[in-house]
């Protein structure tokens, strides 16, 4: 749905600090990134390097101190809460590390939730495609507590995809999963990019997960310190080792 080569999201000179004085932490330090449409991007870096903060700022869940954030051609920093809410609803999908499904709703209802909140009917074809992609057809009427972690996370991904957002952000989506379940989720994200030209940005610690992506950004102390294209597991490991040294 998005044009190849176009910029799906962009941050420029983004800075965010927490606290003041001695306890001050610079979470993002003048970060500038372009995220290409139809690309699967991984964000890596040691714990505390600012990955989640970056994702939250991009996904309109949080605001930065300075710099600009754009989703498509919409500048976020000028928007008020109402417009940001609408943007989150229509243009952004977010997958949390800990699934975060609504426990009262079935898998199907959870997936359709963003649409029903917006009062939109699902695009039948797209919905079927998403369901087919997440491979959950026989589990749709189960409540979250009847699903495994991997299944819950796939429901969460489906929920992020169903409104056809410009970008899907995923913060350590496989962090709570065993490797087999994690692989299912990564495969799902990969296919959404390949088959549906979805733009996906994912935070991960796992070089195997990073190897699923088209591009890896490395963060350290709130800065982008390195970048890989079409990475392999070995390349990622190597870069990580080099940066840690």
């Amino acid at each position: 749905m998005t044009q190849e080569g176009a910029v799906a999201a962009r941050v420029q000179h983004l800075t965010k600090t927490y606290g003041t004085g001695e306890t001050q932490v610079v979470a993002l330090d003048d970060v500038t990134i372009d995220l290409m449409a139809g690309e699967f991007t991984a964000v890596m870096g040691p714990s505390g390097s600012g990955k989640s903060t970056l994702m939250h700022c991009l996904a309109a869940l949080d605001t930065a101190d300075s710099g600009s954030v754009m989703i498509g051609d919409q500048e976020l920093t000028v928007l008020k809460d109402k417009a940001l809410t609408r943007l989150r609803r229509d243009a952004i999908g977010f997958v949390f590390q800990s699934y975060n499904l609504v426990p009262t709703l079935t898998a199907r209802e959870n997936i359709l939730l963003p649409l029903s909140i917006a009062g939109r009917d699902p695009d039948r074809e797209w919905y079927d495609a998403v369901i087919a992609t997440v491979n959950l057809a026989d589990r749709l009427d189960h409540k979250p507590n009847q699903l495994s972690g991997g299944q819950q996370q796939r429901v969460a991904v489906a929920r992020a995809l169903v409104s056809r957002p410009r970008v899907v952000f995923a913060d350590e989506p496989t962090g709570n999963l065993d490797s087999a379940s994690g692989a299912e989720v990564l495969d799902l994200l990969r296919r959404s990019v390949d088959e549906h030209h979805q733009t996906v940005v994912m935070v991960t610690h796992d070089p195997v997960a990073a190897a699923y992506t088209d591009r890896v950004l490395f963060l350290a102390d709130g800065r982008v310190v390195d970048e890989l294209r079409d990475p392999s597991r070995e390349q990622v490991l190597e870069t990580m080792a080099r940066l840690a040294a």
Partner: protein
Amino acid sequence: MIRASLKSLLARRVRLLLSTFAIVLGVAFVTGILMFSDTVQRSFVALFDSTVGDSVVRPVNSDVAQQGAVFSTQTVPASLQPDLERLPGAARVDGMVSATGVYVLSTGGKVVGGSGPPAFGGNWNDAPAGHGLEGLVILDGHEPHGADEVVLDESTADRAGYELGDKVSIVTATQTLDVHPTLVGIAGFREGGSLNGATYAAFDTPTAQQLFLDGKDAYTVFWVTARDGVSQEELTEQVAAALPEGYEAVTGDDAAEESAGPLLSGIGFLTTFLLIFAGIALVVSSYIIVNTFSILVAQRSRELALLRALGASKKQVIRSVQLEAFAVGLVGSTLGLGLGVVLAMGIRALVSSIGLDLAHQPLILAPRTVLAAFATGIVVTMVAAWLPARRTGRIAPVQALRDDVALPESSVRRRLLLGVALLAAGIPLALVGLFVGAVPHNGWWVGAGVLAVLLGVTAASPVIGRPFLRATGAVEARAFGPMGRLAGQNSLRNPRRTTATASALMIGLTLAFTVAILGSSAKASVDKAVEDNFIGDYVVSSAFGEGFSPAITDRMAEIDGVTEVLRQRYGFGLLGGDEDDGLSIVATAPETIGDFHLKAVAGSVSDFADDTVLLKEDWADDHDLGVGDTLEVTLPTGAKKWRVVGVVEDSPLVFSPVLTTTQTLLDSGFPDQDNYVVVFADPGATGLQERLDAVVEDLPVVTVKDQQAFAAEQRAPIDRIIGIIYGLLFFAVVIAVLGIVNTLALSVIERTREIGLLRAIGVSRRQLRQMIRLESVVIAVLGAVLGVALGIVFGVTLMYALRDQGLERISIPVVQLVVFLVLSLVLGVLAAVFPARRAARLDVLRAIAAD
């Protein structure tokens, strides 16, 4: 472990605040109701304690006249005083003159107090009341001296609009007294306290004797005050030994009890109600607390599970929960006790505005109340905390560590079974009480049955409520879209919590409806009784049934358009001299007996003459009396024997089972006064009301009423009691609603994470607020529907149970009920305001990170 639980307590400040608030609310409710109820009762008894001395000397049988509320001419001579003063146990002897029916007119010419509490007149003195209690003292001005000076009690002077130096109008129902002395003093109790709306006018002794005792050098009673160390009993023995024939001495305690007795049984219904209400307060409070803690522990289950996973035993977990509950309960009870005092003040003010003058009555905080407060706050809280903690203990730690905990369904089923069992026991119990005449204490059966049904419905409500919640959920989903559906699902997620919250409101509304139906039916029954009994066109009567001069009746009989007047007089005696068997007597002139159209069952109405009586059939049967037998009664002038000349069918016109002649009552020591006159008029006569009013113009206590006005007056005392009850119920409903606010707020906190998630995927603040509001409405509607249904069933059931006691009409006040219903829905929406705002304000990221 202890430190861990205390830390977890302090770490969750909002939660702590809300759970403490629930306890404070519950305890305050119980405390307030108990305090108020003690205060009401004390206020009635206190009045009588301060109106008797250590030992009271009075004519034998004077209590007969007193009970009949008829002015007695019986006195004790002043010449007894020196003998009494010589007694070794007597510190002092004071002669008291007292009379009832002495009305103070306001500056506007109206009787102060209206037809409510009694109006006393007497002589001023500073005799101490029994047990050295200080009686009334002069608060302002000085004691009365001479025929032109009077002292009034504070509240009377206030209500009448008199200040020191004003001329006060004082009258009696008869024309025997109509004076205008100057107000020289204001009397009152030094520590506060009131006469409960009674009025009191005091003169100096000679004036009082002149006004109330025909100038005899005598007193109504003597108060003998005991020397230090002499008990009331010892003193009274000495006094009794010194008294001549015809006079008796009773201890002050006995005298107070005697005179308070009829009043206390008169407000017995109110007392019983207050007690029941205190019980209900306890139930509602327990609900709120149990509810709150079941939410808290459900929320804490993950934390507890973590402790279990780290190796804490079940026992340790439960103990830590209990410790936490104890600490919170202690703090909550203490605060609740304080708030309860404020609440009691509020109820007192409310009730005072309805007409029961308690404003000067100090509130009573009995040890029992404090005990009940802490028992509610601590015991209920600990039980409330223990129940869900035990439930948590039953699920495996791993399971509890998962995102959301599904509590075992079996406990819901058990609740249903319990509810069904209670219903199965309660319904037959109530039915037996209602329809099987043979069982003793029908009322208790019905009461127990109704209580069992109430508890049964409450216990089963999670199951009973489920289809309802489904239905409202569906309606909301249709009407409000996705947020409506979410709201419906949230209510269904923990039906136990939803319905328990609704139950608090349900109980409040059940009560309100029951009482509304009782009240409305009581009113309707009075109206019907009036309709049935009202003959003629007007009735002439005075505030308390006190008499008025027969000259009034004579003048009315002469008015154009009046075809006939029918006089009745009231007397009161003791049947065969038995203290407990009071008997009211009605008298009329033998010439007019025909106007009553009495149907004789035995004997003949035409034999009706002096010293004879006609008896009503039922009463005669009960007492085994027939024509030719002798009826023995004790009257102010002593024992009398009256011959029964006829037994007649019941007639609503005759207010008592015994009818004798006017002269017979006069001979028995009752004054020459009419009490109740029926006026018959020409159908065509106009302006009669005005002309009749003109006759009683100078007698503010005597009124002429047509049927409508008469019915309204008969209803007044009922209206007042209903008013008090409504006041209390209002508080109950307010507490229930605050309970809902609390529960909703907690459920918002519990769902912090979920709410954050909803916001993250694009739910707007407005939508979120709407969702919470809808949830609240569901709770309110559920509570209201159950409350309405139960209230109507209970109201009608109780009315049916009371059908033998004169409440024969069942009336359902539809408008009032609809108002209640709408009000509870509005309150439901308002209850959501705070929690909804809190939910909408949550910071998205922080909410998602919350656990």
